[in-house]
């Protein structure tokens, strides 16, 4: 019975005799063993590489491993190849997790057990406060690294990754200065202005005016279209422009009592009740399809969103979008690169990310990937000032976003911002689009958030 289950007959028919079979098994075992040994030896090879510093490159290449999420675009912008050319003894290898929701818990696990960490780890802005507050001891202090100039970065960006006792654990890669992307064709059909200056004036200074513009839009809007993509997008845009949202400066959770949060919630709920936003969650398949079907007129739009729009649109949408200033400046997104102390090549990794986040490289990244530089020095470089985007015709997006970057408030971010924000969106305003009253939706949201915040 057992013999019949084994792949006996197949081996015999191909290999001929039982001896041949034995040889095959042996070969398989040997190759497996060799593989394991090779794994070990390359590992130890790496270690010797780091202990000699890899300076003169005595044949042993140092491999710097990068733990990233989403599409950060360093590779696509050719920055690894460039650095490897400058430093022949260095090899860069990236390990990308698609979604930050999957990347971050694993990172926390690795940090707490001090194992499985890459030489460089990316951290999303939504998590940076928590990492700074709880894990700073596990990271190199980059403010003391040679070649790092604090003045390269926007001040608030630098502060976000810095602890109270001035240890900086991450170097900023990009930021998300928010603008409003709008469909010229839909605006025209609804009788709204299409020129980006005038569009900006429609709602300058006040998110309430933005919703009012939506009401005007709705009166004459083409059938089946919505003014904005999603309630989550709207509440996020409003909150991004507030100085204080979920935590106060001393670290207390204030989201329930902060009038700005309630106002943002109520305004979004109002827009949802009036049918200005569709019942969608951003970055989900149904939302993607809504873009592809040209069903909404505006979307809060940091530079990286242009890439998303382009990726999800049909070819005929090219050039139909434009970019206008938002009611109030805000930041949405951005990441940091950090070096865990337990990495194998701490020194090389620090040198590498210092180079990678320098203004020149950030400018290159913007030109290819649309990640907007967190280094103001890059804003005057040609690859930023001359940047254009297929989706928005000839709009000078580099200048528009650079302008938007200057009006971003210095925002207090807290360790559990993501939980609060997700609760307000996914368990709150989305319910209003389903016909729940704003008061009930607020109740569901706060109950969920409180339960999730409670230790």
């Amino acid at each position, binding site marked *: 019975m057992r013999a019949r289950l084994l792949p006996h007959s197949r081996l015999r028919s191909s290999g001929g005799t039982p001896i041949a079979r034995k040889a095959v098994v042996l070969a398989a075992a040997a190759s497996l063993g060799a593989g394991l040994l090779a794994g070990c030896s390359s590992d130890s090879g790496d270690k010797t590489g780091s202990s000699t510093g890899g300076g003169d490159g005595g044949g042993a290449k140092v491999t710097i491993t990068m733990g990233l999420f989403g599409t950060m675009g360093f590779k696509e912008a050719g920055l690894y190849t460039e650095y490897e050319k400058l430093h022949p003894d260095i090899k860069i290898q990236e390990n990308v997790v698609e*979604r930050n*929701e999957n990347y971050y*818990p694993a990172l*926390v*696990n690795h940090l*707490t057990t001090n194992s499985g960490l890459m030489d460089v780890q990316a951290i999303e802005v939504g998590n940076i406060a*928590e990492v700074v507050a*709880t*894990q700073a001891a596990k990271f190199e202090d980059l403010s003391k690294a040679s070649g790092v100039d604090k003045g390269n970065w926007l001040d608030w960006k630098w502060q976000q990754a810095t602890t109270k006792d001035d240890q900086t654990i991450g170097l900023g890669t990009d930021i998300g200065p928010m603008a409003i992307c709008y469909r010229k064709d839909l605006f025209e059909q609804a009788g709204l202005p299409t020129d980006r200056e005038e569009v900006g004036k429609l709602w300058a200074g006040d998110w309430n005016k933005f919703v009012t513009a939506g009401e005007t839009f709705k009166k004459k809007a083409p059938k089946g279209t919505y003014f904005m993509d999603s309630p989550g997008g709207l509440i996020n845009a409003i909150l991004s422009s507030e100085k204080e949202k979920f935590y106060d400066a001393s670290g207390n959770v204030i989201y329930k009592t902060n009038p700005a949060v309630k106002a943002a919630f109520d305004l979004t709920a109002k827009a949802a009740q009036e049918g200005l936003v569709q*019942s969608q*969650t951003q970055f*989900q*398949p*149904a939302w993607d*399809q*809504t873009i592809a*079907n040209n069903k909404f007129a505006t979307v809060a739009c940091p530079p990286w969103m242009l890439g998303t729009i382009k990726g999800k649109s049909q070819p005929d949408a090219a050039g139909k979008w434009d970019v206008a200033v938002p009611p109030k400046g805000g930041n949405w997104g951005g990441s940091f690169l950090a070096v865990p102390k337990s990495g194998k090549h701490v020194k090389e990794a620090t040198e590498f990310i210092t180079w990678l986040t320098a203004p020149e490289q950030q400018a290159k990244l913007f030109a290819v990937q649309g990640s907007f530089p967190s280094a103001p020095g890059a804003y005057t470089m040609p690859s930023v000032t001359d940047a254009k985007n297929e989706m928005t015709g000839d709009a000078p997006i580099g200048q528009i976003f650079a302008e938007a970057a200057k009006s971003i408030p210095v925002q207090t971010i807290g360790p559990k911002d993501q*939980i609060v924000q*997700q609760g307000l969106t*996914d*368990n709150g305003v*989305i*319910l209003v689009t*389903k016909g729940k009253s704003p008061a009930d939706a607020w109740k*569901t949201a706060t109950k*969920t958030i409180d*339960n*999730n*915040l*409670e*230790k």
Partner: protein
Amino acid sequence: MATRHDTAAPPEKEGGAAPGRPAGTDTADAEHRRRARLSRRWQRDMRWSPYAFVSPFFLLFVAFGLFPLIYTAWASLHTVELTAPTDMEWAGLRNYTRIFDDEFFWNAARNTLTIGIISTVPQLLMAMGLAHILNYRLRASTFYRVAMLAPYATSIAAASLVFVLLFGRDYGMINWVLHSVGFDNIDWQNDKWPSQIAVSTIIIWRWTGYNALIYLAAMQAIPNDLYESAALDGANRIRQFFHVTLPQLRPTILFTAVVSTIGASQVFGEPLLFDANKGASGGAEHQFQTLGLYLYEQGWVNQHLGRASAIAWTMFLILIVIGVVNYVISRRLRASS
């Protein structure tokens, strides 16, 4: 190995079963001692070797089964966050007592139960029907059997992605079909029962074939003469199914019911991936959040290790209760048959 039962002589008693040599000589004595030593070794070998052979499993079990279990129990008695697992603060039974008025926990428990029922019952019934059909002589029966196992071999992630598209509210194929026969669009994501049915559909799709093959294997072990005599008595195929097949399958049905119940109480991947928000809250109003999902949300999204551990242990205890109930029922059934 040295344990060759066929050659291993039983230890001889002093002066027993006399070897044909005169006792008392030196050589015989040495030979005797040698035999005694060997026999002691065999005894030790016989006694301890099996333990050595089974030890790898138990060592692994201690490392990856028992230790996590105990650590989880320990963590569940503390307030501890995933960001600092060594920083534990004694909380006593608070994490457990809190579960009693944690409406999210009970909501998840209810959902687990309802999803479990609307997925397991149709799944086993359909599996039974399919197995019965496949048990007939069919052309290309191997093809059908392999095809039935294909969903089981598909990863949940890939399958859920397709189902999310099928169940889309605005552009989903299912709503499109329903619409064309005059139904309103159903919001499969956000309404309670539609979302639970959608999640159950994924589970049913995935496991029906698997259970059908188990039933099929059991059906093929039923002696053919039972059917022959039933046919001679004039029983048609349907009566044969109810009076021959079903009674013969009883132990198998019980087995699949137990396994499916355990599986249903741990449902996790399908609702997680079905959620449009890709969060672990099981929909905007937690309408399809299962216990597994709630545990994951508390532990990995919110990083409350202590609370998550308490939930895990509570789930474990619930599973034990389910197991005991299953055992009692199966004994009753066996006694009655």
